[in-house]
């Protein structure tokens, strides 16, 4: 494991049974490292395995093979998620925060109670101090005026801001974002991107963002990973992906580059849509 890596994924394999009980590989030997302090964007088309990978990274699913090793600053040696018990897994979970697609606020609690919950649960801090921390966290995401509202009274963007405040309550070292721009208008989406970049710069957190919103991805990423059929198709710096996106299709070599070019530009024709599995009828519709 690279000393600068905070998470190292090696040959991660994850399968789910299909309707007949036969295992289908969703992750098929994924390997890459996430470096301390960087913003890494994981992207790919629907069904490429990016959500499964995120679920494996946060310990929601256990991988069937390979390893996902965490090496946060409080650890003397890397800890493999596949090998730790529930107690150790919970300890690792306290070192990261997650912003879920829907915000995933607890509907029975107010905004401030949502943010306070991890603090009440995992620290022995005095309630008055918790209140101060909650105020600060809500201020960071510009949600202080809404602290006493219930989640049902918030807009989609406000829910994500509140979710972000809760995700950062324990000052995590790593922040995971699951489709942070999904369902938001462009202005709100840009505001969330700003917040994410703010957290990266000011708090020096490592950010792992799963998205297929390319505008947002190019705004926030230091590095990018493209997944395809459960495998890493390409990993590299944002600039490399920008070059690929802007390249003349005639100069691209091989299927992988063609496929990436199509995905990054959001084109309806290309290797992604010409793959087996599309019916003649579907091809005709896509090609107009």
């Amino acid at each position: 494991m690279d000393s600068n890596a905070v998470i190292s994924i090696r040959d991660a394999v994850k399968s789910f049974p299909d309707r007949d009980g036969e295992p289908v590989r969703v992750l098929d030997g994924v390997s890459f490292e996430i470096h301390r302090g960087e913003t890494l964007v994981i992207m790919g088309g629907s069904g490429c395995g990016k959500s499964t990978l995120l679920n494996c990274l946060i310990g929601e699913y256990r991988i069937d093979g390979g390893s996902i090793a965490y090496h946060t600053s409080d650890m003397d040696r890397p800890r493999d998620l596949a090998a730790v018990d529930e107690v150790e897994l919970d300890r690792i979970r306290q070192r990261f925060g997650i912003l879920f697609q829907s915000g995933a606020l607890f509907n029975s609690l107010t905004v401030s109670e949502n943010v306070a919950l991890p603090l009440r649960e995992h620290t022995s801090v005095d309630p008055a101090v918790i209140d101060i921390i909650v105020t600060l966290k809500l201020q960071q995401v510009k949600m202080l005026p809404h602290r006493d509202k219930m989640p049902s009274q918030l807009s989609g963007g406000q829910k994500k801001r509140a979710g972000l405040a809760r995700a950062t309550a324990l000052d995590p070292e790593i922040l995971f974002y699951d489709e942070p721009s999904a369902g938001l208008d462009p202005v709100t989406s840009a505001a969330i991107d700003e917040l994410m970049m703010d957290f990266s710069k000011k708090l020096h957190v490592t950010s792992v963002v799963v998205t297929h919103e390319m505008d947002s991805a190019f705004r926030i990423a230091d590095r990018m990973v493209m997944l395809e059929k459960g495998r890493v198709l390409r990993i590299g710096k944002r600039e490399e992906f920008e070059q690929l996106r802007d390249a003349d299709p005639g100069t691209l070599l091989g299927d992988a580059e063609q496929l990436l070019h199509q995905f990054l530009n959001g084109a309806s024709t290309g290797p992604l849509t010409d793959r087996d599995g599309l019916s003649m009828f579907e091809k005709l519709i896509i090609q107009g």
Partner: protein
Amino acid sequence: MTDTPHEGRSALHRAVSSVGRFADAQWRFARDCIIAFGGLVDLLRETLRWCVEGIIRPRGRLGRATLLQQMVRVGVRSIGIVVLVQIFIGIIIALQMAPTLQQYGQLERVADVVGIAVVRELGPLITAIVLSGFAGASIAAEIGSMVEGEEIKALRAHAMNPVRFLVVPRFVATVIMLTGLSVIADLVGVIGGMITAVFVLDLGAEVYVEFTRQALKLSDFYGGLAKAAVFGVTISMIACYEGFNVKGGAEGVGRATTATVVKSIVSLIAVDVVFTIVFYVFKI
């Protein structure tokens, strides 16, 4: 294996295929039942583990506040409907038994019948059935909505165990409140019978109370309460299990609530049969 077109099959082939499909459906149903039972046992085991942990190392106000909230939701809000149903049950039993008892000149024994039927059997059972529709369905819908809204995933991701946070308060609240409601149900059922005895059957209230007192033993009362506690375990476990296994959005939540009520009622009757056999064998 690919299906042969229907028209090309012989009558024998079609008959054997039908039997095969029927057997396959039964096997799948049995397999699903075994998986669900295993899941329920597992959930109960984990719930009891967290209950013990909670007693040894209580963790502040959050748990207590949720427990109180659930007790109000499960129990306090159900009092009205339980009282109403049990009064009706008392009246029904008294009126159904009166003609037969009158034939034998034993009309006063209507107090015995109502007392034993309500305290040993119908108080806890009918209360549990009411609660399975009233509280069980709402617990399943609430947890199911939380699954769909990623709240359960968020709990786990914040290193908070969903069984401890969601199941334990609902489990404890249902067991305590169902037991408490059964006491009310017993009392109200007997009162329902007494109202009928006094106003319809022309029996004195003192006579009715005296016959009830003579007919009932303390073990009848405790036996009924033990049943109620186990009924509480059954309803809360089924409701939480169905809630956690919601799939398919709002439609899935709807399916879970229906399944909770149906499975709870069937399970309550099955548990009651076991209790009745045990009580009969050990003459309790």
